[in-house]
Each structure stands twice: as structure tokens, then as C-alpha cells.
């Protein structure tokens, strides 16, 4: 047991980086769930990993490759103008294929592919932290502007179009935000943990919440708590962080067993 390492200054930047992601990603996940596109994050994460590997093969930085791939995927998804999960399944399979083929054909690619799939939070730097801070700022700035329109689109289809507002632009803006968020998160915590951060907290928190704002607050709290527990447990028990985070997030599913909150006023 190495519990004293939890408070070691060496892990301060990785801890803060992960904490910012653990708040931002589930908030985006709430809207992904609203749109019934919960597979988005996994598809995007896999494409991002493929972009990182492809970047190496093409002689560019893996982060640039990952961000570029995420942006392209979001734009392509918007261009076909279809909601639902089928597009993301195709992205997932495409990303998986490219990432593994790329890894198989480059020694360095294999290393990067392994890091992206499994996560490397403890090795993240100030640059990663700056990216996570920028993401949180973007979420805080953009989500309140997009929220009403995304809810309107779900509960009153075609309402925006009837008022000559372009739903396509709103969906594209949100898809790009999700894509870049997943690209950043994949660099730090890996593919499956990124997916879990987007999918599990809203799934756990929505069940008993009465009201959208309450559900968002509950989502962020659930995710942050799971993250802190996972961070301490992974270091203290000398376990890989990604799987521990996913396990901790899955445990938050117990929140669904709590009695429903009373009606909102």
C-alpha cells in the first residue's frame, strides 16, 4: 500500500487534470444521453486513438492527429445529419481497425496505441492540464448557450427550424465540443475510461433526479466523487488507473437504487 503517494506533489497535476475532465465529460454526457447518442463518446474515443496512431505514421504529433481525427469525425457525423447511434458504431469500428493496424505497422505506434487505449493519467503534464482547463471553460461557456436549443430539439422537434434557426449548426457545435473533449480525455485516461465518464454518471444520476438542473448537478457530483475515490485507490493499491476509474464509476450505478427525489418547485 502506498497511500502517502496520493498526496505526493508529483501527482498534483495529473490529479487536477483528471478532476477537470471528470466534471466536464459527464456534463457533456448528460446532453449526449438527452440526444440518445450515448455511443458517441466511445466512437469518438476510438477514432481519436486512431488519429493519434495515424499522426505518428504521418510524422505529426499524436495529440494533433487525435484532435484532427475527432474534428473530422464530428463534421462527418454532422454532414450525414442522422441522429442515433449507428454512425457512432461505424466510427467505433473504423477507429479500432485503424488504431490496431497502425500499431501493428509501427513500433512507436504500438506504444502510443497502448497508451491511448489504456490511459496514462500519471504521466500527464501541464499541457494536458491546460487542455482540461480550456475544456472546462468551453463547457461552462458553451453548454448554457446550447442547452435550451438541445432540449427544444428533443422535446419539440422542428421547433427551431420553424423559427428559421439552423438545428444543423447547433448539432455541429455540440458534436465538435464532444469530439474535442473526448480527444483530450482519451489522451489522459484512455478510450474506455473516457467512454465511461460520458456514459455512466448521467445514467446513474438521471434515474432519481427530478429536474434537468438537479440531474446535471447530481451527474457532476457523482462523477467527481468516483474520480477521487478511483485516483486514491489506484495509487494506494498500485493498480492501473483506467480500469479502477471505470469500476468506481460503475459503482455509482448504486445511486439508481436511491428513492426518487421529491417534485421540483
Amino acid at each position, binding site marked *: 500500500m502506498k497511500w502517502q503517494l496520493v498526496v505526493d506533489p508529483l501527482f498534483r497535476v495529473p490529479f487536477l487534470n483528471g478532476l477537470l475532465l471528470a466534471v466536464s465529460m459527464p456534463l457533456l454526457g448528460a446532453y449526449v444521453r438527452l440526444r440518445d447518442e450515448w455511443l458517441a463518446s466511445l466512437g469518438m474515443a476510438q477514432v481519436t486513438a486512431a488519429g493519434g496512431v495515424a499522426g505518428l505514421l504521418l510524422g505529426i504529433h499524436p495529440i494533433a492527429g487525435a484532435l484532427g481525427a475527432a474534428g473530422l469525425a464530428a463534421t462527418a457525423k454532422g454532414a450525414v445529419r442522422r441522429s442515433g447511434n449507428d454512425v457512432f458504431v461505424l466510427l467505433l469500428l473504423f477507429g479500432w481497425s485503424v488504431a490496431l493496424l497502425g500499431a501493428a505497422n509501427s513500433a512507436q505506434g504500438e506504444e502510443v496505441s497502448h497508451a491511448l487505449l489504456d490511459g496514462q493519467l500519471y504521466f500527464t503534464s501541464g499541457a494536458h492540464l491546460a487542455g482540461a482547463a480550456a475544456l472546462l471553460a468551453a463547457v461552462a461557456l458553451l453548454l448554457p448557450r446550447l442547452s435550451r436549443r438541445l*432540449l427544444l430539439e*428533443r422535446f*419539440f422537434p422542428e*421547433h427551431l427550424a420553424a423559427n428559421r434557426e439552423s438545428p444543423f449548426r447547433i448539432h455541429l457545435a455540440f458534436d465538435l465540443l464532444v469530439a474535442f473533449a473526448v480527444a483530450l480525455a482519451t489522451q489522459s485516461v484512455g478510450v474506455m475510461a473516457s467512454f465511461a465518464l460520458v456514459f455512466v454518471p448521467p445514467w446513474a444520476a*438521471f434515474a432519481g433526479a*427530478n429536474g434537468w438542473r438537479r440531474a446535471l448537478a447530481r451527474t457532476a457530483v457523482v462523477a467527481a466523487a468516483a474520480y477521487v475515490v478511483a485516483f486514491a485507490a489506484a495509487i494506494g493499491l498500485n493498480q492501473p488507473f483506467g480500469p479502477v476509474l471505470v469500476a468506481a464509476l460503475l459503482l455509482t450505478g448504486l445511486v439508481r437504487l436511491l428513492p426518487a427525489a421529491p*417534485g421540483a*418547485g
Partner: protein
Amino acid sequence: MTPLLAYLEVVAGYAQPVVGPISFEVRPGEIVALRGPNGSGKSTLIGALTGSSRVLSGRIERRPGLTVSLQRQLPTRPEGIPLNGHELLRLTGAHRAAPPALLAPLLALRADKLSGGQFQLLEVWACLGGAADLVILDEPTNNMAPSTIEAFVSLLHEKRNGRGVLVVSHERGFVDEVADRVVELQG
């Protein structure tokens, strides 16, 4: 009086025409009904306004600056989404108006916990209770119990307040009761 919305010899459809040519207009303060059997193209005509179907010929004119509140047929009630009634009304600005007595006790509940008829009434009120110049209701009485329809008819008359209302329905009795003018579509 300038119409809020005018369909001028509109033929609407997708790859092929579905409905038209048809002309009608909605002026401030009047309730116009599009009536016809299922499959006659009523919803396709509304889709021509939003772009979900195409105007193949003719044209649709809108008063400049027109604001529209639109409730589509069989409104989606996403399961597992924790939006409550108050928040749903806030989306369309209908939270500022006093809700009908039938609806008031339901507003604190999650929308996905309401019955089909209750949710339908909530969505209809979300459109009527807002400040849009034109309210479009596509088969608004679907899922509603007779007593709810009665309350809805009263609301419709009460809330027109100089606004235009375009109601799409296949129910003859309901249309006769609420509409100032009826545009008949053939099946």
C-alpha cells in the same frame, strides 16, 4: 390584415408530390384547421414550413419576424430524461403564464412520468402559453381523454389573444368546434 402565414399553390412532398396544390392563410386572431384523413398530407404540409418535407412548387410566405410555436404529431417523450413540467414550459416561455388547473399539479413531475394524454396536454400548453405569433398544433388531441379535450378546447379559445393558430386534425367534431375556417384535404 396581413396574414401571418400564407401557402400559395403549394405542392409539398419528398421525392414525389404528396399533397397540393393548396392555398390557405392564417391571420392574427383566427384558428384555421387543416382537416383530412390519415395519409392526406397534413403533416407533410407542416413539414414544408420546417424543411422536413419539400416545397415542390408554389411558395410559403411568412410575415417578417414571425415567431412560431410548433407541436409535432405524437410528440416525443424521451424515456429516462429528468426534465420536469416547469422546465419544459420554460423552453417555450410558457412558464410565465398561469397554467390551466388540469395541468398545475403535474408540473412538478418529470415529463417521462406523465401519462400519454397528460404529456400531450403539457406540450400543447407549452405552445399555447408562450408568446409566439403563430401556434401550430399537429393532431393535438391524440392520446387525450374526452375531458382533457374539453379543457383543451376552452384553452384554445382563451389563448388565441390576437395570435394565429393552425390546427392539424383528422377529428371532424373537434375541428368543427374550434376552427374559424377549415381547409379540407382529400385522402
